[in-house]
């Protein structure tokens, strides 16, 4: 959780509608915003449309209604490559390392759009400094690492581009509880140390909210609650529905 969550929103999602099939909206009027330096967490039951929101933001799905503003610029229905250029990177829910490439090569791919080799090298060195565990495994093939290390690499790769905002789709998915804790602690640390701004979706609502400045609850494709992480953690109804009492 950061101490610097003031100012104008970096990302502003205004009442968007989107879905996979024509004429069938999974999300029906979702609004949220993220300010620079914030960690914002979206929680909600399965099928509430959390992942759909991310896909719509990143151009994998069409936004049929509503607007997305980033840095005061309209980025509604932007293509993935343009989203990247605008300064948004994504850590997907499913495994996304390149398994037969080394850790260093994976990081290098995070800056695929950068042509300046010197700068790529500097960024790799910087990321390896941030993640000593990855530095130890620099020349190891990513596919041979543990699930937690791969997730760490995915986050490191997303940071290569020096993004203004990182979207994280269930960073705890498929990880053991202890590893999950480590990953969340890592995200919190990056937020404090380098001012990383994060919008994440989390199934693991309690741990997600604990490190978040603010949170949103989605239900049936719409906003149902919002508040600071603290407020949502103590809200009776949210507790009953998502935090197990």
């Amino acid at each position: 959780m950061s101490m610097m969550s003031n100012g104008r929103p970096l990302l502003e999602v205004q009442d968007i509608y989107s879905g996979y099939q024509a004429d069938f909206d999974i999300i029906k009027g979702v609004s949220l915003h993220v300010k620079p330096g914030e960690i914002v967490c979206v929680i909600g039951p399965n099928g509430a449309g959390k992942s759909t929101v991310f896909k719509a933001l990143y151009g994998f799905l069409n936004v049929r209604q509503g607007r997305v503003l980033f840095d005061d610029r309209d980025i509604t229905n932007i293509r993935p490559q343009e989203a990247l250029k605008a300064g948004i990177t994504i850590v997907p829910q499913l495994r996304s390392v390149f398994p037969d490439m080394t850790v260093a090569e994976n990081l290098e791919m995070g800056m695929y759009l950068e042509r300046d080799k010197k700068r790529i090298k500097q960024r790799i060195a910087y990321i390896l400094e941030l993640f000593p565990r990855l530095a130890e495994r620099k020349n190891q093939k990513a596919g041979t690492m543990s699930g937690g290390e791969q997730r760490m690499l995915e986050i490191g790769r997303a940071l290569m581009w020096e993004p203004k905002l990182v979207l994280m789709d269930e960073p705890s998915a498929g990880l053991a509880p202890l590893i999950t804790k480590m990953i969340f602690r890592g995200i919190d640390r990056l937020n404090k140390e380098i001012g990383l701004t994060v919008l994440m979706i989390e199934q693991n609502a309690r741990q997600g909210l604990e490190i978040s400045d603010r949170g949103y609850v989605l239900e049936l494709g719409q906003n149902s609650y919002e508040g600071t992480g603290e407020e949502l953690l103590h809200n009776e109804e949210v507790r009953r529905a998502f935090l197990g009492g």
Partner: protein
Amino acid sequence: MNQFLQASVNGITLGGFYAVMVLGFAIIWGVMGVINLAHGEFVMVGAYLTWFLNKQYGWEPFLALLVVFPVMFVMGYLLQKILINRIIDRSYLISLLVTFGLSIIISNSFKLMFSATPRTVDTVLSSFWRVGGITIPMAKSVVLIMSLLMMAGLYLFLQHTRRGKSIRAAAQNREAARIVGIEIAAVYAFTFALAIAFTSASGTLISPIQPIFPFMGPALTLKAFAITAIAGLGSIPGVLLGGLLLGLIEVFVATYVPGIGTNLGVVASYVLLVVVLVVRPQGLFGSLRPAEG
């Protein structure tokens, strides 16, 4: 002893050709998830181009690479944009049917244009080297050297260039490739073009060794399929070893198993294929699952 050495030399030269011939097939399968049943036809097209330059303009066959590679690169690129692009995300069955149709169209057009008469090229490399008691045809040894050089070149390209890395990335995890900003469609078009160029170039290599005719393709496609499946997807050194293995097995079986004859030596490689598929379905050196199809 001499017989053993001679068989080894023959097996290695044959295997080297197999390896470079299979590369394009293995890459298209591994990166795009498309099994190209017209593979052998592209070898044939490269061989005919070489024959044409040889007969018409008196070019030395290996020199034809300078034309075959770029021309077939462009052809591959266009073919991908017009046809293959539409079948990438469909089931394997669709890509099998479309490329099978393509193979029939290509081979029969060549039959119409050049008749079914087998053709041969003339080369200055028609003599032999004699080392000890064994003979090494000059043309074959040049084919082996060129094959190894081409494979090494492709390997270095994939490992060390930005474009090569984008191809590997797209093959290993397509979604991840997209999120780091790789345009998948562009990668596929380039990959297909490159693979076809390599495939047709292998047709140039084979032209001084084997007669060229319109229906030489299917046997080569079958061989490519067997070697790729035995070697496994995703590794160029694997394809090289798989090719060499098959070449050696074919020659040794033909040499040492009495009464089996050269053609039946080929059977041995398919027996190996069945054994590998049962014991180690991902192939001997495979690390990559084929793309979802």
